[in-house]
């Protein structure tokens, strides 16, 4: 069955307020019900393998909604990374290539250069992007590659059992920092998005969170801006999304969400770090 044969779904409402979307599409006038929340057509009907309270489901949904809304799916090639989200290709009904650990920005470079008409995004966790993949992300950004990077930061290596990542908060206990992260031994959390924002090739860099519906809406607006940046041919863009890992953190899903809302932004401030297109439009560029 082709994608086109999938029945059209109503436009989802969640998170759309901040993105400035219109109202949900109405069902036929004769029907007393209208669809206010539905599965984006780009998401497969497969149940995910993610743990209860994991943020990947929300972030997958935001990406899928945007691929639907911007009608990008038929020309999108996704690049999956290594970590819990390696199976992203099972949940998105689009072409996907799996990358070696950390190399997704280089793989995406190859895809985009070989197929300039494709819409290309990477979906990477913080172990992948901020540790083993630092060379690849920095140089893809420096080259101003026309790709969108979805950077999911939960401050831990989830898939391998909750070890410390370069993004782990100071004092945070993990299976490889059982006494808590000590900067004298393990250094400091890396603010990747701020670092990348220094590079002129980076057209857009922002950090959002999935702490609550308000933040989810703002994060979706950031992702939309990132995708539109690529569509405008304006350069590299990255949206870091502060996310959860209740199992790795030893918290309940509710505690984990509260942690993302209240504690994590002290180390990783939310907001747009750079938007060079907007700056140029205002004459700041």
């Amino acid at each position, binding site marked *: 069955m082709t994608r086109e044969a999938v029945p059209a779904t109503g436009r989802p409402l969640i998170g759309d307020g901040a993105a400035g979307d219109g109202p949900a599409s109405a069902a036929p006038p004769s029907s007393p019900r209208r669809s206010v929340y539905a599965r984006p057509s780009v998401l497969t009907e497969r149940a995910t393998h993610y743990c209860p309270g994991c943020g990947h489901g929300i972030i997958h949904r935001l990406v899928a909604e945007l691929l639907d809304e911007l009608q990008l799916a038929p020309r999108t090639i996704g690049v999956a990374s290594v970590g819990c989200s390696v199976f992203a290709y099972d949940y998105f009904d689009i072409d996907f290539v799996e990358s070696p650990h950390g190399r997704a920005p280089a*793989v995406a470079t190859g895809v985009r250069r070989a197929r300039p008409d494709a819409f290309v995004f990477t979906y990477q966790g913080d172990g992948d992007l901020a540790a083993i993949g630092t060379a690849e992300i920095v140089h893809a950004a420096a080259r101003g590659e026309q790709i969108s990077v979805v950077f999911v930061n939960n401050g831990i290596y989830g898939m391998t059992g909750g070890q410390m990542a370069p993004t782990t908060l100071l004092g945070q206990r993990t299976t490889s920092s059982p006494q808590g992260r000590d900067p004298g031994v393990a250094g400091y959390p890396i603010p990747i998005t701020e670092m990348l924002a220094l590079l002129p090739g980076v057209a857009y860099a922002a950090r959002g969170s999935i702490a609550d519906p308000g933040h989810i809406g703002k994060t979706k607006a950031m992702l939309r801006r990132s995708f539109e940046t690529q569509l405008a041919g304006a350069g590299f863009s990255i949206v870091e999304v502060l996310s959860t890992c209740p199992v790795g953190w030893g918290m309940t899903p509710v505690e984990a969400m509260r942690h993302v809302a209240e504690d994590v932004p002290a180390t990783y401030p939310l907001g747009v770090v750079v938007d060079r297109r907007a700056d140029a439009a205002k004459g700041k560029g």
Partner: protein
Amino acid sequence: MTAGLATRPRLMKGNEAMADAAIEAGCDAYFGYPITPQAELLERMAKRMPELGRTFVQAESEIGAINMALGAAATGAKVLVSTSSPGMSLMAEAVSYMAGSELPVVLVNVMRGGPGLGSIGPAQGDYFQATKGHGHGDYRVPVLAPSSIAEAVALMADAFEMASRYRTPVLLLADGIMGQAMEPVVPVFRTPRWDVSGWNLTGAAGRRPRVVKSLHLLPEDLERHNRHLQAKYAEITERETRWAGEELEDAEVVIVAYGTAARVARTAIERGRGAGLRAGLFRPVTLWPFPSRALAEVASHARAVLVVELSAGQLVEDVRLAVDRTPVFFHGRTGGMVPTPGEVVERVRLAWALTEPPR
């Protein structure tokens, strides 16, 4: 240039000739990183690919280059990557992924002395790496070993064709002399058959989405995938094994050598024959698949086999596995040193003296 048309001889440097051959073969994208002694290949591509409206990217590292190649190959592009020994080690990870993901790509390794940073002189110390793996896991990569610049040009088109036909990385294994030397060449360029239909990523417009991946988490799935790969390697072995023989009809001592070592051997054979030593050359053109059966047959008529390498002894292991009773001798130089024809003649003489005619 029209495919297959021979032109007047041109003085060509190996690295540049390989670049030209790839371009004439229709290479869509090149990714590389500067390293001696292959830098002229990258430089040639830097100049010519943009002129032709094709993709050239100088990556941040060999790791970056090979992963860009992975991404471009996933779209079905005809991709070339070149490097020298230390760079090949860095590329090993992604070569394993590409073998597992069944992606076509042509790799060039212009070998230099090792281990480690080694030297920038010619060497053949990457034979094990090239033929027995590179990265992790059960996979093979066809390895083509030219011993002249003209042959390197011809093998480039063959490499692309094999890469597409079998959906596999293919390695052109040269050495510092092959890369740096200049010789007159009548380049015979050819446009290879190239078919990526049915699997390449283009965006899923009008069809079911495709996934290019090497992950198969269920053991049953991965074993099935590995059996598929092994069946492919068996087919490559059956169909693509190549070698060349010179002066083997009456050879009492068979020299086995490839690349630059084969050229030294050729000179040694001429000199040896001048002195009454009947030696011949068995030159594997594919190092994997290795021409074991052909070598066993050739060796069975000889008194002795002498393996000559620019290494401490790597090819010799495959030769010993292939040859039945005939004694196998070895002569190798390393670190950028090259055996002289005189050394080889002496080894032939010694091998002859220490052995009996075959029964």
